[in-house]
């Protein structure tokens, strides 16, 4: 078992402190299947929707947990349900639209019909026709509903779980994540739109990326040059007690351009020759009394909640095999935003998503790793910035939260596929 505390020796060289992840976890189909079973369909809570996406009775949304299709519905009494999107008859997709409103769910293949909680309501020719055919006499309609998942919500975020063992949602999230969720979802929100991108890399490379304050000011020149995020900022990397969730935050008002320039001297990241002809892109408002202007809250396994300046969004990870995943960005504002604030958020949306002046590069970062590790599954990465341990830090020059993610992952999946 590898861990951060163990120093790693290379033959003939002095041992070094650091944490290493075998590249096979990003390429091995068996590990991927194990993740689907033990993580996404295991004892975790997965984000499936914002409540504002399904505000009215009959509203539904189809989405995925890992690669498993599910339907999120709001039924007549206002209850939110999450059911497996798979007909109990012969396995067809019941819901074939991304979203909509319906009184019931009906499979097109043989018209088996379910209510919004997933109970089977009826099926054609159940009693046969003219005395012929029909289901056997012992057919029990109550035993053929859609599989129901556990559902819990927090501040308008809907989570579902296949597990009856996982702890209640708030306990699963823990105080760090709950605190950030309550801060960002402090009042009713409104939906501003979705963005989707398909990234040709393993989903865990993105899990690393959003737990990595080290890269954020180096890869993303736009961040650094315009002071949205710099490693020199006042900020912190915080890790949940289990290691699985983490939060990075920073305070842009702590920028000191002169000192920051010298800190980034010689690096391409701080481009003093680049200024905006139309600075309205970055003209925002101070929104939070705590002064925090950037939060990346990474929730295991499939969600990132973000605030970057005045952009607020959730990013859902949908896996597509070992070497691809889809990232679904759902942007939101507050229901009480005035029209100027709406415009600020829509304009700053230029910063994030697949065309985001900041975030477009994360897709590329994931893909250049996936491309380079092909065929060499025994080699390992080296993660040591900040000390090589899964500990909190009051600075941003650390990879500690990445190690927290992997230690939790090791407990669930392990790094050795033969065990």
């Amino acid at each position, binding site marked *: 078992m590898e861990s951060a505390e163990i120093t790693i020796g290379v033959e003939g060289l002095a041992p070094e402190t650091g944490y290493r992840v075998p590249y096979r976890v990003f390429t091995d189909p068996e590990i991927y299947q194990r993740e689907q079973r033990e993580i996404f369909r295991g004892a975790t809570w997965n984000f499936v929707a914002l409540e504002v996406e399904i505000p009215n009775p009959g509203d539904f949304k189809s989405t995925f947990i890992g690669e498993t299709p599910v339907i999120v519905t709001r039924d007549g009494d206002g209850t939110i349900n999450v059911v497996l999107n798979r007909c109990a008859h012969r396995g067809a997709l019941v819901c074939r639209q991304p979203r909509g409103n319906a009184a019931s769910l009906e499979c097109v293949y043989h018209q088996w019909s379910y209510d919004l909680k997933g109970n089977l309501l009826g099926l054609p020719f159940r009693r046969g026709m003219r005395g012929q055919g029909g289901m056997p006499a012992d057919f029990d309609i109550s035993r053929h509903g859609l599989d129901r998942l556990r559902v819990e919500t927090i501040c308008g975020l809907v989570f579902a779980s296949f597990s009856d063992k996982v702890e209640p949602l708030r306990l699963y999230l823990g105080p760090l994540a709950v605190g950030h969720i309550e801060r960002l979802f402090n009042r009713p929100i409104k939906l501003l*739109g979705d963005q*989707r991108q398909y990234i040709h890399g393993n989903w865990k490379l993105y899990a690393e990326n959003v737990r990595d304050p080290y890269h954020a000011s180096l890869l993303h020149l736009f961040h650094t040059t315009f002071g949205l995020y710099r490693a020199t900022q006042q900020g912190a990397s915080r890790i949940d007690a289990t290691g699985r969730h983490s939060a990075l935050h920073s305070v842009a008002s702590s920028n000191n351009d002169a000192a920051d320039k010298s800190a980034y001297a010689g690096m391409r990241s701080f481009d003093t020759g680049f200024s905006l002809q139309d600075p309205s892109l970055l003209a925002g408002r101070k929104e939070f009394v705590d002064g925090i202007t950037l939060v990346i809250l990474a929730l295991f396994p499939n969600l990132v909640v973000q605030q970057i300046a005045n952009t607020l969004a959730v990013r859902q990870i949908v896996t597509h095999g070992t070497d691809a995943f889809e990232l679904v960005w759902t942007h939101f504002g507050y229901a009480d935003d005035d029209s100027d604030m709406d415009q600020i958020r829509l304009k700053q949306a230029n910063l994030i*998503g*697949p*065309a985001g002046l900041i975030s*477009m*590069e994360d897709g590329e970062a994931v893909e250049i790793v996936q491309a380079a590790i092909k065929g060499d599954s025994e080699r390992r990465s080296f993660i040591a910035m900040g000390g090589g341990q899964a500990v909190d830090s009051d600075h941003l020059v650390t990879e500690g939260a990445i190690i927290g993610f992997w230690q939790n992952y090791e407990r669930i999946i392990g790094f050795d596929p033969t065990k």
Partner: protein
Amino acid sequence: MNFRTLTAAELHYEISALQVEYADLLDDDRLEDWPELFTETCLYQVIARENADRGLGVAAIFCTSRAMLVDRVVSLRRANIYPLRHHRHILSAVRVTAVADDLVQAQSSYLVLQTRADGATEIYNAGKYLDHIVFAYGRLRFSRKIAIFDTNRVDTLMVTPI
């Protein structure tokens, strides 16, 4: 130029020529010239169909001035990190949808093909343009160009304008 004085054929020719020039600038990587095809206060929006259909405003790219278009290009050249790609715009079904003295509205379909560094070509983005075109400072320019793309799921990233 009063657009109403042009015949339908003349108008169609003028609009088509502008569209072709637009596609050429993008496909030939002459991006620094691309903002010149817009008016100073313009709207350029590249938005997923799933958002446009729901009346939701979030767009992949949303610029409200020519200066913002310039900033996009400068960012692409100086700041952003992305792989080498070539794009090819295929335009079709160009048509004028409304004519006023000083404004033409047009719609067209487009397909953007993407060729990766390894030489493989794929369909990258499919959609329609909704354009407002005016005559300003000696030539036709877009006062508004909205690209509504069917390809809701963008392949990796979008750095070059559509």
